């Protein structure tokens, strides 16, 4: 693993209905724009740890739809979908985001890329219909994360048990 170059992502809550994520990447912004505008790239990085994209559809133009099916660490599949609303190449993408197990809870994501000295500041501002929907999203992440942690624990247990026997 190469040494860590970039500060980890920051998450803030600028208002009752928003979540703001900021992260700096060590690449000009056109590469990031490329990486998020085509399925052949998206498949390599999108989603929490342990999630694998098994089907990717992305019609990257204003009014185009996207849908990513992921396989979770427990083997179950679920999907995320939305619609692209606005594209300013290399600068800005506005799209809707919906987690299919919770249909109707649609948030609007505004993604912005700002380049400085060859690095890019990537921000995503998610706007939810209500404070309850936003908090629901934060909580669902918690559950997913807890499951991931428990899965890893489960994998590690036989090793621990093996060590105890010796």
């Amino acid at each position, binding site marked *: 693993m190469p040494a860590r170059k970039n500060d980890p*992502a920051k998450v803030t809550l600028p208002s009752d209905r928003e979540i703001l994520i900021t*992260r700096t*990447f060590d*690449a000009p912004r056109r590469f*990031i724009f490329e990486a998020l505008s085509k399925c052949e*790239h998206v498949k390599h990085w999108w*989603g929490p740890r342990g999630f694998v994209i098994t089907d990717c559809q992305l019609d990257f133009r204003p009014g185009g739809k996207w849908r990513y099916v992921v396989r979770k660490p427990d083997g179950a599949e679920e999907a995320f979908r939305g619609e692209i609303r606005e594209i300013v190449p290399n600068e800005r993408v506005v799209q809707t985001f919906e987690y299919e197990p919770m249909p109707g809870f649609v948030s609007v994501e505004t993604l912005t890329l700002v380049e400085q000295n060859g690095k890019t500041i990537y921000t995503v501002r998610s706007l939810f219909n209500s404070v309850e929907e936003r908090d629901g999203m*934060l909580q669902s*992440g918690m559950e997913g994360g*807890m499951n991931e942690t428990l899965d890893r624990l489960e994998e590690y247990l036989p090793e621990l048990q093996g060590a105890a026997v010796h």
Partner: protein
Amino acid sequence: MELAKPFAMSQPSISKHLKVLEHAGLIAQGREAQWRPRRLVAEPLKDVSEWLEQYRQNWESSFERLDQYLDKLQRKEKKNARKKK
């Protein structure tokens, strides 16, 4: 009264703020003779900070993969540029 002292705010405005915090379950009101001492209920704040941290970690794991993928894209472009020369 005591809670209002450090703030440049009237007693009624402070009471309003306290009511909001109480309604949100972030402070609790006690009763001691003529006093109404409030105490902080920090548990919900801890929940929020845990949700935020988990949400952040989910994104961060995507971003770490994107870091590596961007390296690859950039290397590929350099290689192609050399080929053209």
